[in-house]
């Protein structure tokens, strides 16, 4: 019974004796554990001395290989180790530390791929030229994807997902027959073949901030305009932009960093042919040289709306400057500025001739401008809040408008007669007319089609309930204050495309494997992020209560961060902090692995995430991979490997690729990988769509080093220092006065075993009395105290019981056997 593995309990004596009055170890029950600590977690558990933290910086910023070798470090005593680190602090630079490493993010998908899981920002309807073709609806969502829906009289069928943007899709337009152009908060504009299976043909990275809006000329595919934050507006000639790379020595080469898919066939301006699906993250990216869009320069502030006429001879823009600016898209020069709105301009329309312009603003007004006269000829006070979306009949006789007040109105521009068509549950973000109906996108993930008599708007007015739009913003507000809000003409949409509820709230639990979420429907779910699955659906219950209920007194370093901006969980991994969390194999119930093996959570998660890619890659490279797992393109990495250390412990290489069950991700609804390599900007792709042909340069070097070479960056301190003292008044022998060091995850029962072993070595003891428990003592001679549970880790004791920056002091006493 004494063959206990004392794997890493090193003893080391320090000169100064530990403070004698500090031998307090208060063991508390969970009710006295503060919630503050619960949320803070354990990253602040181990508090290292200044010398130590300085040393850590040094350690990670490149040093001598022998020190970097973790196994050597393991063998060395904590004190010696620390001294070495401090010693080299002076002559190493922090350059490695200072540079921000690329992060790897994975987005967890709960339901199937056929539904949006966040608000819809944009709509586009495709009507095929022939009579027999399907009508298609394109939706772009805050979940970062666009989806195509085949429309029929009785319903809409999911037909493709366009996944490549890594942030909200803000707008989308169809142009030139088959080209779908989308823009996103990831600051890119992407071009897709709208009838493909979701292939991104091209990414334009001209913008430096969120791209908020697009405008395309119906009859001229050479004009697509993109506008965004920071006042950036670019006018793209799609034909030129998508043309094969020409050998131009243009001076603007560096300005345009568009990515070319080398497999893409030359694109004509009438159609974008489908592009091979096998390599669609533009992995073999090259710089598109020679094409730069026209910049419409002169915006002082962010642009939130754009519109162009059918021929693309006029461009109007609006934004926080509160003015409508008119541009010549062929030159990017300003032609006029129209003042009138008193707040952000969120929606714009131009009639086909380019003479009239409609604008919708956060000042709740709709204005009609005559560009020939350069003035506002009508202002319509229809909405009670910001106007976010406009759609007009082809003749520009009527306008449909929606906005923050969740209401959809139809207004006769000439007679100023207005009618409330329907009220939604969410603010309206965009509108698209389709035959006699209108598609309405809201901040919810579902899209609805409403009857609108778009082919003959006056028919709606015949149903009654109309009112005359005022021309001052307060007049409409007054109407609603007086309670005479009009009754909507329609109660039910004619067609619905349902989405799933977006996650809006989350909490990372203390075990750092589970995340509790709440979605827009109020459903509370528990996720296991190392597998990317929902392990419990609690239904509509109190998030806060469940959070309290799931509280666990466990301290594990924060190895990932989470956000929910895409409506689903995005888990972010950064180096080196993501490698700070370890667990024992036994606690993860990994079959066939020695229970004392330490498992690095980030490493196993990365292996699980990239399992598909790794398998395919191995199949491709076959025997080319050297036995030691060196990356073929390791040249770039060689400079960094100095700073790296091999994973300690589980040595055998066959094990390296094995994915343990707690890290197996779903194949049916695989997570999406979002990351950035050494070139080409960030990309997003389903983990199962990675086919192994991707260039290693598309991944952060540290991810490759981890999954291919089994090398982890130098970690945050994984050790915990402590003293072992006999309980006050106890007759137990004193083992040592020195400081001990052990892994932070070491369980108390191991410490007990250590004490027993030490005692037994000195003086054999009665086997019945060696279930030696830890009885921490209080000052003042009180003797009985709660005993530390055997299964808590040193880190947990430190974070929840000790709660002090000083080194932990554990007291022990013998419990007489029965």
């Amino acid at each position: 019974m004494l063959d206990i593995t004392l794997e890493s309990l090193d003893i080391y004596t320090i000169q100064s004796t530990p403070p004698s009055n500090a031998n307090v170890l208060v063991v508390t029950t969970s009710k006295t554990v503060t919630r503050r600590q619960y949320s803070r977690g354990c990253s602040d558990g181990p508090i290292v001395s200044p010398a130590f933290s300085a040393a850590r910086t040094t350690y990670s910023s490149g040093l001598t290989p022998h020190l970097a070798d973790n196994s050597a470090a393991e063998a060395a005593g904590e004190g010696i180790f620390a001294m070495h680190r401090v010693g080299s602090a002076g002559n190493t630079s922090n350059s490695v530390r200072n540079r921000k490493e690329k992060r790897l993010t994975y987005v967890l998908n709960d339901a199937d791929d056929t539904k949006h899981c966040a608000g819809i920002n944009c709509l586009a309807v495709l009507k095929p030229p022939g009579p027999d073709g399907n009508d298609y609806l394109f939706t772009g969502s805050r979940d970062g994807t666009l989806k195509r829906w085949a429309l029929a009289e009785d319903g809409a069928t999911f037909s493709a997902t366009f996944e490549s943007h890594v942030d909200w899709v803000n707008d989308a337009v169809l142009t030139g027959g088959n080209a779908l152009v989308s823009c996103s908060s990831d600051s890119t504009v992407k071009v897709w073949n709208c009838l493909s299976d979701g292939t991104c043909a091209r990414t334009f990275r001209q913008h430096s901030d969120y791209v908020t809006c697009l405008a395309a000329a119906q009859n001229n595919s050479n004009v697509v305009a993109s506008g965004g934050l920071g006042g950036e507006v670019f006018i793209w000639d799609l034909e030129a932009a998508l043309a094969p790379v020409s050998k131009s020595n243009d001076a603007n080469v560096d300005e345009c960093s568009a990515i070319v898919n080398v497999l893409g066939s030359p694109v004509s301006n009438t159609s974008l042919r489908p592009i091979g699906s096998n390599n669609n993250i533009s992995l073999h990216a090259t710089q598109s040289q020679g094409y730069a869009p026209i910049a419409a320069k002169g915006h002082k502030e962010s642009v939130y709306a754009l519109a162009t006429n059918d021929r693309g001879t006029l461009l109007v823009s609006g934004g926080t400057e509160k003015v409508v600016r008119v541009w010549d898209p062929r030159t990017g020069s300003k032609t006029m500025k129209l003042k009138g709105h008193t707040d952000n301009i969120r929606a714009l329309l131009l009639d086909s001739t380019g003479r009239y312009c409609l604008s919708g603003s956060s000042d709740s007004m709709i204005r009609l401008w005559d560009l020939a006269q350069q003035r506002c000829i009508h202002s319509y006070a229809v909405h009670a809040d910001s106007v976010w979306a406009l759609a007009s009949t082809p003749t520009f006789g009527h306008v449909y408008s929606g906005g923050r007040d969740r209401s959809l109105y139809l207004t006769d521009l000439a007679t100023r007669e207005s009618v409330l068509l329907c009220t939604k549950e969410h603010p309206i973000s965009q509108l698209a007319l389709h035959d006699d109906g209108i598609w309405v996108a809201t901040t919810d993930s579902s899209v609805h089609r409403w009857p609108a008599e778009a082919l003959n708007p006056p028919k709606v007015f015949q149903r009654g309930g109309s009112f005359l739009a005022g021309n001052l913003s307060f007049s409409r507000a007054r109407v609603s204050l007086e309670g005479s809000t009009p009754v909507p003409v329609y109660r039910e949409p004619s067609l619905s495309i349902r989405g799933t509820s977006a996650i809006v709230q989350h909490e990372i639990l203390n075990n750092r494997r589970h995340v509790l979420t709440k979605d827009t429907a109020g459903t509370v779910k528990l996720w296991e992020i190392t597998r990317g699955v929902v392990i419990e659906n609690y239904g509509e219950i109190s998030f806060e209560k469940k959070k309290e209920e799931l509280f666990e007194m466990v301290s594990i370093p924060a190895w990932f961060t989470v956000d929910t901006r895409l409506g689903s969980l995005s888990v972010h991994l950064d180096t080196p902090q993501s490698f700070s969390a370890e667990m024992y194999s036994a606690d993860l119930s990994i079959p066939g692995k020695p229970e004392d093996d330490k498992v690095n959570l980030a490493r196993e998660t990365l292996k699980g995430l990239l399992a598909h890619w790794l398998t395919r890659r191995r199949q491709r490279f076959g025997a080319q991979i050297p036995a030691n797992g060196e990356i073929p393109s390791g040249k770039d990495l060689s400079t960094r490997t100095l700073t790296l250390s091999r994973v300690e412990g589980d040595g055998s290489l066959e094990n390296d690729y094995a994915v343990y069950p707690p890290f197996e991700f779903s194949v049916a609804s695989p997570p999406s990988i979002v990351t950035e390599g050494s070139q080409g900007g960030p990309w997003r792709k389903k983990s199962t769509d990675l086919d192994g042909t991707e260039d290693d340069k598309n991944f952060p070097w540290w991810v490759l080093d981890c999954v291919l070479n089994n090398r982890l960056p130098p970690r945050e301190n994984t050790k915990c220092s402590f003293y072992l003292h006999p309980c006050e008044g106890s007759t137990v022998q004193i083992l040592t006065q020195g400081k001990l060091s052990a892994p932070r995850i070491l369980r108390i029962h191991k410490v007990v075993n250590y004490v027993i072993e030490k005692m037994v070595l000195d003086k054999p003891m009665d086997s019945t009395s060696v279930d030696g428990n830890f009885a921490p003592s209080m000052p003042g001679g009180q003797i009985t105290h709660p005993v530390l549970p055997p299964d808590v880790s040193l880190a947990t004791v430190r974070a929840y019981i000790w709660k002090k920056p000083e080194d932990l002091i554990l007291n022990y006493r013998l419990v007489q056997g029965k």
Partner: protein
Amino acid sequence: MVDGVTLTMGVAGSKLEKALGDHFPEGERYFGLENFGNTCYCNSVLQALYFCVPFRKQLLEYYTSNKSQGEADENLLTCLAELFSQVSSQKKKTGVIAPKRFVQRVRKENEVFRGYMHQDAHEFLNFLLNQLVDILEKEPHKVTSENAVNGPSNGHVNGVAKEPLVTWVHKNFQGILTNETRCLRCETVTARDETFLDLSLDIEQNSSISSCLKNFSSTETLNAEDKFFCDKCCSLQEAQKRMKIKKPPRILVIHLKRFKFMEQLNRHKKLSYRVVFPLELKLSNTVENADSEYSLFAVVVHVGSGPNHGHYVSLVKSHNHWLFFDDENVEMVDESAIQTFFGSAQEYSSNTDHGYILFYESPDADDK
């Protein structure tokens, strides 16, 4: 040296008394304060506070009700109360007082003020008011009784002392700002209230307090690298932020940021900009939109061209007379002289006396 000062003071004192003649206000005392080596930052602020009548009244009341306290309980509040009481109970109408105990206490409490270096008067005022608040908050029973005396009850009287204590220092100086942030995407407005004891305003050349206040509550866009995390959007978005005065204080203390940190020089520089401060101020950018009117009653003036040296004096209005306090020295000045402290329109000017901290009182708050 001290004797010399006393001598001139004797003359000045009589001069002041002569100047006021029969108009010398009943019961009022005008005393200079001795300088213990660069303590003008303290003297100038003390004079301004002394002539802040509601504050003085309450401090003297506090002194009367806490007289019994022993030396052991001495703190900044008791020292200040003692000093004010000392001044107000002088037999002579004018003269000089050495605020020795108070200055010693300040130096004991805060090492920043311990040395004999030149100090920032605004920093001192801020420190002093916060210390007074802290001390008052630590003696809840006394505060309750004070509250009972001082007007409408506000919860503590009922024994429900959960909410933060509102001491009489708060009642005089505290106002509430509201910080409104509107996400430009979902247009949700997030409002957050914060309290203040004084307003620090950025200044511009040839401007006025009204325009500085306007700038203070002008809209600021959070954009580019500084976007706002919108809880509703669960993401970073552009946002517009503005500060409004939600509850104007009874005594509005305005600090003009005349000491600007120049990054290229790596040190502070004094801005001698001309900033007009009116005798009567209308506060229009409040949430309630109800204009609050204020009258100027004290100005702490910084004399000198740099931030690390120079001198502090104060201008104080008492019973419709303006007085000039320069440490031991007290003089009468004409109201028209106030404008010489606005600052200069040229960068280099021989006039280096600039209004630095302005004390405004809301007259309508008096009757409550």
